[in-house]
């Protein structure tokens, strides 16, 4: 085929242009470390990458939620365990004071102990985490239990919606508690016990004893509930940690360039460019005019 001079130069220009474009691209990949710099580099991969990034962000957030939930549950557990101890101490005291051998003086001092126990439990019921009361239902900004000094009556100021937190896409956990449901009328029981002790009322003491049993059982149930919730959250946390790792790996596979591969590619393109330049230079110099 007849080759005009123009063809030679056009082809040189076109090929050099192509090679510089590829060289530029290889350079970009090495410089940014990312396979995908433009949407069009790998559109399907990019959509996957976007979805994974969104999942990762969500998982991180749920992880934060779980941390906060666990701190609430831990605080609840420890507060309730102490309440339990107080109750069993009070019950032991009841057993002691119900015997006929105790005198009113001992009963009077026991009444003072019971009053202390009552106030201690009120304080425990007003436990807060980071300024928010965990036994107040959803009214977490104010102490749920307040005791009237004169009448010794404890009123509940919270509400009955336990504070809930999201720990998964379709999973919520109650990390706070409805104080009324947890503590019931334990304060009335203790107050009555104190009055019974002061009045030397043995039947009153015994009635209080069986009430204390009921309260103890209820708090035990609550503690094991909290325990199983904490277990559930731990499991969820582990799952999220695994998901985090898997997703980060997947994201890296899609987005990140294999540096070794990228650099080899760059070197290959560089070599091709040099070769093209050399051959073009030689061809461009040939002409019949030199020989005439």
């Amino acid at each position: 085929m007849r080759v005009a001079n123009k063809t030679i130069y056009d082809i040189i220009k076109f090929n050099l242009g192509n090679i510089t474009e590829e060289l530029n691209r290889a350079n970009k990949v090495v410089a940014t470390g990312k396979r995908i710099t433009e949407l069009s580099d790998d559109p399907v991969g990019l959509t996957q990458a976007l979805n994974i990034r969104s999942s990762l962000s969500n998982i991180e957030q749920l992880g934060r939620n779980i941390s906060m939930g666990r701190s609430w549950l831990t605080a609840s557990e420890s507060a309730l365990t102490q309440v339990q101890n107080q109750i069993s101490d009070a019950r032991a005291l009841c057993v002691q004071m119900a015997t006929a051998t105790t005198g009113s003086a001992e009963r009077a001092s026991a009444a003072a102990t019971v009053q202390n126990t009552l106030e201690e439990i009120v304080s425990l019921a007003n436990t807060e985490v980071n300024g928010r009361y965990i036994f107040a239902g959803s009214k977490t900004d104010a102490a749920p239990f307040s005791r009237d000094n004169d009448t010794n009556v404890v009123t509940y100021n919270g509400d009955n919606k336990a504070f809930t937190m999201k720990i998964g896409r379709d999973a919520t956990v109650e990390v706070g508690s409805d104080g009324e449901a947890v503590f019931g009328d334990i304060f009335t029981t203790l107050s009555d016990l104190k009055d019974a002790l002061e009045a030397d009322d043995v039947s009153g003491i015994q009635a209080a004893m069986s009430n204390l049993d009921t309260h103890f059982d209820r708090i035990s149930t609550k503690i094991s509930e909290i325990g199983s919730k904490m277990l559930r959250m731990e499991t969820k946390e582990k799952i999220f940690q695994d998901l985090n790792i898997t997703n980060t790996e997947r994201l890296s596979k899609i987005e990140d360039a294999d540096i070794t591969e990228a650099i080899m590619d760059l070197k290959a393109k560089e070599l091709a460019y040099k070769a093209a330049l050399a051959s073009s230079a030689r061809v461009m110099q040939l002409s019949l005019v030199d020989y005439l």
Partner: protein
Amino acid sequence: MSGLGLVFSIAKDAVAAQRYGMDVAAHNIANVNTPGYSRQSPVCEAKDRFKYGGLILGRGVKTTHIARSCDQFIENQLMQQKSSFSCLEQMDNYMQVLEGLFNENSGNSISAMLADFWNLWHDIANNPAGASERIGLYEHSISMSEQFNALSADLSQLETDLSNAVSAAVDEINQITNEIGLINNEIVGMEAGKATANDLRDKRNTLVSELAEYIDVKTFEQSNGTLTVITARGCVLVHGNDSYDLELGGDNGDRVKWQGSGGATADITGYITSGKLDGWLNMRDEIIAKYKLDLDALAKEFIWTVNQQHSQGVGLEAFNTVTGTYAVSDNGEELGTVDSGLDYYNKISDGVFNIWIYDSSGAVIGGGPTVITVDSDSGGTSLTSIKDAIDAVDNISATITTGGRLKIDADNGYTFAFSGDTSNVLAALGINTFFTGATAGGIGVNSKIGSDNNFIGAAQIDDDGTFASGDNTNALAIADLQYTSMDIPQWTCDRINGCTEGNLTTTIEGYYHAMAGSIGIKAASISRSKAFNEVMVNKLSEIRDSISGVSLDEEMTNLIKFQHAYAAAAKLITVSDEMLNTLLSVK
């Protein structure tokens, strides 16, 4: 003529012919780099012979004409391929700009901001009374809205740029067709004899090629040598020395029209199939139009979804006064119809909502909520009837602003809040909503929330009218919206049929990711087509140049050839001169 005179005559013709040959070779050499030039060569013929004395003698050479090596078929093929290439080249350029707008590698990309938005609602659900969480959500929502606004504005700017390019191209096209008409005239004049106007034809081919880069053309050569140029829809651009112009017209001045003689116009916008105009019109009317509509659809659904849930909630305090953010165009029209002028009129259905009134200590007045009904019977509920119903409630008053918005004010010492809206009318009127606007260009954050972050509705009102600062029911519900699939409109745009609405069921983030992916796929496919086309153009160019291109080696050889022949012909004169002298010196 015979005898020595014949030799002189032959020699004279020979010298002339070789000289023409050298002239043509020189012309070729000079034009070796001229684009669109077809190499010329002299066509020589032996002159008619004559009989003399029983012998048939030749009379030498004559140059009949200068031929142009040009295969018009290949030229036409090349022109069409270049036309396709120009179209794809322009589309590729603009798609790269479009890709850049949706750049997902920066932290300000919309997908990153959407993910953070939902996370901030989690944070509020974890600590509903926290001031820093509320400020965080508010500031982030402002940034995100601005990002949507900027993207929408950028798309609009691209559309304007494309329209400007089309406008400039139309002027250019008119100029070229005019010139082609003039050249047609010149060619007819020059070719009156048997000659071909080689260079003029080359020039005309170049002009047609330039024209083809802008718009698709078909050419036909008439018997008198003029070229007829036809474009989309069979509209004639050049015929003889008449040229017909294109203009911009239509409602928005963005349709390309052909002006016939006698004032008729034809809209050819949808029928242009290649050239830069095709590329620009594809980008403007099909691609960018579609993504603009999609982005607006996404924003509209996003705004509604968040607003609808947010209007069910209550902040840390009840309202003193509230003004709706969406306006009606007619106070008396039923709210659920398009005549009301509301952006979200189609989301309103029959239902009720509760208004709770609180006194200065926060206690509920009236023992319960006032229930306002929205229904489509008996003329339907208009803004006026809602206003009247609310106004009738003790301790609050309602008015309609001159802009068509509902305004509710509480009397001194009283506050109010809402719950249980099954009609969606509160969200549609923009009362107790989070976002304002209904498009990507118009999305913003409700100024009520801006004035006081306490109005971010994380809680919900209980059946007894109370609400707690630690209640996160509404915040949890809004955080759940991240996973909710909904029907979001998705558009397809076509230059001939306009834009048609389809539907995609997915989450908000899913829709945006799909949009980014679809832009990437389109860009990649256009890039590939362009590369393929470029190879075709190069191949055809090569073929065309192998026929019409100048090879300096060839021309150099020709020069030598003609030079020797010239020398030989000159020798002929010397020899016949000597012979004549010999004859004349005979005594």
